[in-house]
């Protein structure tokens, strides 16, 4: 019988300055861990909330990376382990996006989804035959094989802010039939929408020791019948959840609200009545809205951006998140800007969607950076991001109290924020 002690690491990244930082328990590492053979003993460190003990005993190291801003740190971590004679494997979304570079820093790159594949990989590893590449790009495992994540690996107290447990991330589907300009999901997860079987979703969701979730699927609005079936099935669990876009349909919105929809991320890309009405319709069903606003697209002049920021004040958004156009590899945005010679910065640490790395069409990079900063300041001028979040939190707490599912905050952690002592003199919490 084999045995193998695997150190699984989620590298840290530089958080965006000036923004309230909340560390959510990452989904990728625990989804990956669930696909490992039983004989692999996993120890997990999320470097965003605790330091790595490079001397912890292990037989090998796996890096799980989601963001472009994690990859360079991942390479540094690999180097540290190489000094200690350990082999390092890398996988995850940003490993796939930056595989050509990452392969120069690690011993093995795993490309694709890991369900049903890790027995072979780990057998190779223990037999000293770990390959440089395991390439399953475009070769998706059956969606039925996606099982519950290894949430037992989380150190829960590190994902807690002043006694309030952070939401758990959850996924009900993979793939995306849309192919949006700045997005690489269709490259990574395929252009085919792959919903998980509803009974598995319900079973998985019910087992999570958390009443608040973030359903991280790219967009739930991909198949109306599936959406209706999903919402109907999860309603009895009385979970409260955040998600990306929900179908703009009264029946679906009603079912979503009854199923516990707390708030959604909704792209606000213009100042049309359609957007205004879209936000209103969510609110009509008691669903909050966090607007996601992408700045720096080629169809935006300075005036357009200013008008868009002003417009946000008119549509009663609960929260807003601003990003600047960032040409992530394997997106149409990358292709277009590359062809036009407009990408001037290929330092992946700067690909955080808050730093301009390309030449905008209608303004200088510096001006776009100023407008991005102005957007954040302007939207949160009268009420801070943390205050607005608290308002949304109160909404969900009241609903939970009505339904008898409210769990009071953990008083033992009231003076802790993501594992660190709270400095009561600091208004915003930055970790």
């Amino acid at each position, binding site marked *: 019988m084999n045995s193998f002690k695997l150190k699984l690491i989620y590298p840290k990244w530089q958080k965006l300055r000036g923004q309230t930082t909340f560390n959510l328990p990452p989904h990728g590492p625990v989804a990956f861990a669930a696909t490992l053979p039983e004989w692999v003993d996993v120890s997990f460190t999320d470097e965003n909330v605790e330091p790595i003990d490079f001397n912890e005993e292990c037989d090998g190291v796996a890096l799980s990376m989601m963001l472009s801003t994690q990859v360079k740190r991942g390479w540094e971590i690999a180097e540290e382990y190489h000094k200690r004679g350990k082999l390092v494997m890398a996988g995850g979304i940003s490993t796939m996006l930056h595989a050509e570079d990452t392969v120069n820093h690690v011993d093995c790159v795993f490309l694709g989804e890991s369900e049903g594949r890790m027995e072979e990989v780990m057998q190779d590893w223990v037999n000293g035959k770990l390959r440089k590449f395991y390439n399953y790009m475009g070769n998706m495992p059956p969606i039925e094989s996606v099982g519950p994540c290894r949430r037992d690996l989380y150190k829960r107290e590190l994902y807690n802010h002043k006694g309030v447990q952070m939401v758990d991330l959850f996924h009900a589907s993979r793939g995306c039939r849309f192919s949006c300009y700045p997005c690489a999901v269709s490259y990574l997860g395929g*252009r085919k929408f792959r919903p998980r079987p509803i009974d598995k979703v319900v079973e998985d969701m019910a087992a999570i020791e958390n009443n608040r979730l973030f359903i991280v699927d790219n967009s739930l609005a991909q198949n109306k019948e599936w959406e209706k079936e999903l919402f109907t099935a999860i309603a009895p669990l009385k979970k409260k959840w955040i998600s990306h876009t929900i179908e703009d349909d009264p029946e679906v919105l009603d079912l979503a609200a009854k199923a516990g929809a707390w708030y959604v991320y909704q792209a606000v890309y213009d100042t049309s009545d359609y957007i205004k009405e879209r936000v209103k319709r969510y609110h009509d069903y008691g669903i909050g809205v966090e607007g996601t606003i992408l700045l720096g697209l080629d*169809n935006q002049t300075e005036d357009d951006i200013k008008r868009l920021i002003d417009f946000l004040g008119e549509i009663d958004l609960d929260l807003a998140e601003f990003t600047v156009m960032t040409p992530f590899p394997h997106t149409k945005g990358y292709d277009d800007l590359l062809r036009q*010679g407009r990408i001037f910065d290929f330092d992946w640490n700067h690909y955080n969607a808050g730093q301009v790395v390309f030449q905008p069409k209608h303004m200088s990079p510096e001006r776009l950076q100023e407008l991005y900063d102005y957007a954040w300041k302007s939207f949160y001028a009268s009420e801070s991001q943390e205050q607005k979040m608290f308002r949304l939190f109160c909404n969900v707490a009241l609903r939970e109290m009505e339904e008898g599912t409210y769990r009071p905050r953990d008083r033992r952690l009231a003076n802790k924020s993501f594992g660190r002592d709270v400095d009561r003199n600091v208004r915003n919490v930055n970790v």
Partner: protein
Amino acid sequence: MKVSPDYYDEIFSFNGEWDMPSACGLKIRQSEGKTYVIVTELYQDNPGTSVTYAGQKLADQICEAKGLKLSDIVYIECNPNTNSKLSFYDEEFFQVSFDADLQHRYRQLDRSEIMKITAE
């Protein structure tokens, strides 16, 4: 975002990044003694790597399949018009020069240039 078949004579299947099965539209034209190879991005009907990201890897595969020499062709990438409301999906053509250091150079072609090539 279905791409009109007017943009291509055939669908060309190729091995994309990490050997992902990929597809593009392909049109080959002779004009004024030159061979023009026009590859069109198919968006939703391309399951793998984009034509731009595939770059020379795609050009090499077309040359091999069609008995052409890379140095003898004029290679053009086409972003087809998808009738999207978004301007990012407007029609564009780029002539691509493949340099030895893989720093490809792109020159945008105007409508009249491309009409001249495809009309003959």
